[in-house]
């Protein structure tokens, strides 16, 4: 008898069988060895990427939607050939400082793994990590000098807040230092970007929400992407900072108030990488119901 689902006494051609059928595609029979197919052959339940699983375990992420979103993000970044270019990536899932601190690329609880150290006032929620604009910042412990290359550096944040404020959402030094890397998303309706150089390049911008990517791919240009739109900005590189990158401001002079739902620091990206990164991050934020 050819049951499609068999609770019976062992029909011969069950598609799914709880008996000791001979030809179960998926079987709960005596043992997996005796079955025609193993439990892992169930379709529709993708396996978890090992890097995603390491992060999920370290951060203690138990929510299935969040686990799936992390897994898809990692798979997407690997598929787009971006994964190997990333030094630190903060997906801000789980809703607490204890889950938001982890670097997806190296989820060890160490400064050397660029695990975040939160300082000052922050509010953590399912939407991400919100610095208070007064004294909050997070230290990545990632120093550009010795880690990144002068003409191959990128960094990015996904902001869920639209405010016009004189503060960087990510940066390693301020004041126009020759080694500055910083991203002021919106100040006087202008976005300011520096990548290993003393001079800021600007781009008109009246909305500080979405994914911003700063990318130095040569000694004379910065590729800057705001919500998927790319701009090529003339800008000369100078040197790499010996200060660590900070998120949510640069202590002690500039403190931002934009909620972060993603951040990364890495090597230089291609133009296509930047487009693909926006696609992957928007999909990630959408999966978590926090895309803006």
């Amino acid at each position, binding site marked *: 008898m050819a049951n499609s689902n068999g609770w019976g006494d062992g029909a011969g051609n069950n598609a799914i069988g709880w008996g000791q059928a001979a030809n179960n595609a998926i079987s709960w029979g005596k043992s997996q060895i005796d079955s025609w197919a193993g439990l892992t052959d169930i379709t529709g339940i993708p396996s978890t990427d090992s890097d995603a699983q390491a992060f999920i375990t370290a951060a203690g992420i138990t929510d299935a939607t969040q686990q799936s979103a992390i897994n898809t993000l990692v798979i997407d970044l690997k598929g787009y050939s971006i994964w190997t270019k990333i030094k630190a990536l903060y997906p801000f899932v789980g809703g607490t*400082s204890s889950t938001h601190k982890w670097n997806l690329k190296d989820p060890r609880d160490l400064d050397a793994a660029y695990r975040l150290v939160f300082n000052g006032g922050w509010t953590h929620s399912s939407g991400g990590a919100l610095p208070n604009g007064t004294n909050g910042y997070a230290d990545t412990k990632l120093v550009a000098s010795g880690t990144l290359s002068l003409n191959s550096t990128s960094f990015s944040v996904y902001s869920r807040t639209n405010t016009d404020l004189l503060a960087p959402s990510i940066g390693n030094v301020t004041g126009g230092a020759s080694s500055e890397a910083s991203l002021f998303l919106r100040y006087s309706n202008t976005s300011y970007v520096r990548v290993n150089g003393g001079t800021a390049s600007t781009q008109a911008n009246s909305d500080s929400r979405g994914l911003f990517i700063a990318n130095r791919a040569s000694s004379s240009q910065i590729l800057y992407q705001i919500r998927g739109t790319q701009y090529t900005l003339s800008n000369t590189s100078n040197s790499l900072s010996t200060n660590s990158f900070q998120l949510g401001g640069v202590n*002690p002079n500039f403190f931002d108030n934009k909620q972060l739902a993603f951040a990364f620091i890495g090597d230089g990206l291609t133009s296509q990488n930047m487009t693909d990164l926006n696609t992957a991050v928007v999909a990630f934020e959408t999966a978590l119901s926090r895309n803006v």
Partner: protein
Amino acid sequence: MIQVGLLTLSQKEELTGQLYDCDSYFNPIQDINDNWIISVEEIEQNENQLLAWVKDLPLIPFEPKPSPEPIF
């Protein structure tokens, strides 16, 4: 108006380098009048029982120092 907790110099010294939850450090800064202050988030989220006194800090309006020049 943003409110912040006002610290004495000795209180600032006591908080520096201390955790207020398992993964977050106090960050005392100076306002425009050189008062040492911490944020209400640090006060409200403090889980460090040895520093429970922060909940009794007087609150004052936050007046930030002007940003140092040059900026851009």
